């Protein structure tokens, strides 16, 4: 039985881009490398399967530069299973033992850097935070939907970063206490209120799960709006700043687009009540507008 079960067509939005021109010699080399890789992959999988408990993962593959991968497909890997194994562990194993070209972002392995959000069994999750034992197998691992795929599980994050930065995600206050070592006081209640909003790790899971964001690339989107909430509600920023912030999120592609579908809140790996934050800002905006009426 072959361990490669590719050619499963997938409708992920892939921008094939332009592959750069290559000499016939280079092409031949690429082919050779590819076939060697497949061979190694098969061999090591045979070994892995002998007598060991394995888990089957199906990983989305795409590379605009490599002919065999220009057509998106799924590769199947059998990874030896260990208790406590996460999805990230499994893809790392597959990369380190079967195919070093398998590409994904990851770093902290502890749900804080936000770089390994994938679409795992049909839902946005962090690879490192998701136990294999809790999933149905084969585990299907895809890049975040609605984002442009760069290669394999890596998506382009630029537009997400742009939206995050569009809400002026930085503290702005005019009044500083006197004395170099005086901090600005903040009540415990106020810290509690903004606390969840400060937990965002910029993983873009919420953005990827949101129907509105998928159809409107100018929509600020869940994480940026939740970020705006974190600042707008911070009592250390002045009233004029709060108004400025409300103006930003009230724009045409701002809070009013949200249709309260809760998909962002459902997938957020940091349990941030995003929808609640969006609703909170809508209320604040209404209050402000009533004031000016």
């Amino acid at each position, binding site marked *: 039985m072959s361990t490669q079960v590719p050619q499963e067509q997938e409708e992920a939005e892939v921008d094939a881009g332009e592959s750069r021109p290559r000499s016939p010699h280079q092409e031949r*080399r690429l082919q*050779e*490398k*590819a076939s*060697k890789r497949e061979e190694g992959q098969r061999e090591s999988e045979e070994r892995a399967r002998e007598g060991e408990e394995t888990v089957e993962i199906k990983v989305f593959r795409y*590379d*605009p*530069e*490599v002919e065999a991968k220009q057509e998106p497909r799924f590769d199947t890997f059998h990874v030896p299973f260990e208790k*406590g194994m*996460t999805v990230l562990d499994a893809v790392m194993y597959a*990369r*380190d033992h079967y*195919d*070093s*070209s398998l*590409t*994904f972002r990851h*770093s*902290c*392995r*502890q*749900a*804080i*850097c*936000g*770089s390994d959000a994938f679409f795992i069994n049909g839902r946005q999750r962090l690879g490192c*935070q998701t*136990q294999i034992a809790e999933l149905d197998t084969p585990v299907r691992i895809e890049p975040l939907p609605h984002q442009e795929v*760069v*290669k*394999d599980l*890596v998506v382009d994050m630029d537009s997400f*970063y742009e939206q995050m*930065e569009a809400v*002026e*995600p*930085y*503290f*702005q*206050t005019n009044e*500083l206490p006197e004395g*170099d*070592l*005086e*901090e*600005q*006081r*903040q*009540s*415990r209640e106020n*810290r509690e209120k*903004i*606390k969840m909003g*400060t*937990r965002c*790790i*910029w993983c873009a899971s919420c953005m990827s799960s949101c129907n509105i964001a998928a159809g409107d690339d100018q929509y600020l989107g869940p994480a940026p709006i939740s970020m705006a909430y974190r*600042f707008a509600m*911070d009592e250390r920023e002045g009233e004029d700043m709060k108004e400025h912030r409300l103006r930003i999120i009230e724009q045409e592609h701002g809070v009013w687009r949200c249709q309260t579908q809760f998909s962002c809140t459902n997938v957020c790996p940091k349990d941030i009540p995003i929808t609640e934050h969006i609703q909170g800002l809508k209320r604040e905006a209404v209050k402000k507008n009533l004031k000016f009426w």
Partner: protein
Amino acid sequence: MHEHDVLVVGAGGAGLRAAIAAHEEGADVAIVTKLHPVRSHTGAAEGGINAALRDGDSWEDHAYDTMKGSDYLGDAPAIETLCQDSPEETIQLERWGMPFSREEDGRVSQRPFGGLSFPRTTYAGAETGHHLLHTLYQQVVKRGIAVYDEWYVSRLAVTEDPDPEKRECHGVVAFDVQTGEVAGFRARNGVVLATGGPGQVYDHTTNAVSCTGDGPAMAYRAGVPMEDMEFIQFHPTTLPSTGVLISEGVRGEGGILYNDKGERFMFEHGYASNSGELASRDVVARAELTEVNEGRGVNDEYVHLDMRHLGEERIIDRLENILHLAGDFEGVDGLVEPMPVKPGQHYAMGGIETDENGETLVSGLYAVGECACVSVHGSNRLGGNALPELIVFGARAGRHAAGTDLGEAIIETGRTEDTEIGEVDTPVAPGAIHTDTDDEAVTDGGDPRGEGASVIPEPVEIVERAVEAENRRIEHLMEKDEGVQQAELREKLQKTMTRNVNVFRTEAGLKQALRDIREVREQYQDVYVADPSRTFNTDLQQTIEMRNLIDTAEAITLGALARDEFRGAHWRQEYQERRDEKWLKHTLLSWNDGTPELWYKPVILEGEEKTYEPKIRSY
């Protein structure tokens, strides 16, 4: 070629703080980082940041605790600077909006931490690093500082003088991870390395996968010494299966360590009769492993950390993140059961040799944060002292690189009259492998001196040459069709380091590690990149990182073999005593044309107003 006044390599706490400081001095700054800034490992820091902020506390007390914690291997001018500047820098973070935990009166909260005589660890829940990193990045966005994210810096552009002290750094070479494009970056004023720790040298570590010692290894090959590399901190409370950290804050809040017999061993077995769980990290890590080795460990592997008695409310308020970590990564509910913990690699006290202004002996080259050794931690870092290091020395290096006069540094870099040449009996010749077949610049990567030139080239030319050399190396790695892959080598290296250069060290083990490292280095000559694509080629990136891991691992092991004493985190079976007469000095390792040279310089125990007298360290 890109051109800026100041280039900051790395965007963790240290790099971001340096960039902001340089920008505030009016410099045109750019950050080049292999991860997007918010992905940096600083985000994982949990416990807190030490600053003497309250009545009853003083920077002097902080300095004293730090010197004692360092086991008298820290340099007083650096430690005093850290403790003097930390309060203002910490309040600066607060003024930039960092959401610290708060007291009833609205001021920032502080808590006790190991080795501190006052509860001066300022914190934001158990996710201090996340908030620090994000707050600093927000300020970078606010100032519009240029960020080249997902650009991997693989080589420094340094002039070719045979004497490293006469070399100058003019920039770096990096490749765009997304497209594979290799580009030169010229820095008119200075390059600040802030590339973080080297935890990936070990297989059980709290460090991120990106912590591969790139900065120290690149600087080392460009002629800058690595200092005190043998001092690796092993954190006493990491989760056994992943290495994920359980913050010292748990013990700070009153968490208790038990062995398999239910004994509170820190007290009952006399490891730290006064401070118990709050003794400093080296003491607790050894105690735990001794329990395991003497048969009192749980499942012969770990001990238990119990916080249940603190009560749900306090846990949720101050340690909520710990509940998530224990649950997600170990499947343990900290509210109803104790958490399994064991020591894991955590922090490198050593790094690139710098002075208090962050400058190295190569002019125009700076280093800050965990990749540097300004020598504030000596042989053992106190918890909560790394984050202040990032902001204090980050700010100083940024300013200095931007051209601000910070006064002459007291700490001298490079060789001086006090330099003592070291010798150590090694089982294999450490350093580069010279093969006659390959262009050494290719597989060995990074030696600044290419073909000798008679006239001193212009800075731009220096950068261009470095780009050429880097292109050759990358082409070679990509063209090669067979050989060995980095993952295999990485595993081998990590295994031998964990087995032989861990908490407990023996001469035989260290020698074995050197032999293994040598073998890995030899095999590395035959390494190749299987992924043929230039797009997001992590195989290529990891292969280059692997080279850095080899040099870093070798420096750690050589230093450990040379230092025949027991100091701080460095325990040697054959030498169970601190030997002040011989060892009140720093270990330095220089890459002289591929042959590591070991030398020593004295520790500076003289502070501004007093001299710190080495005392027995008891807790």
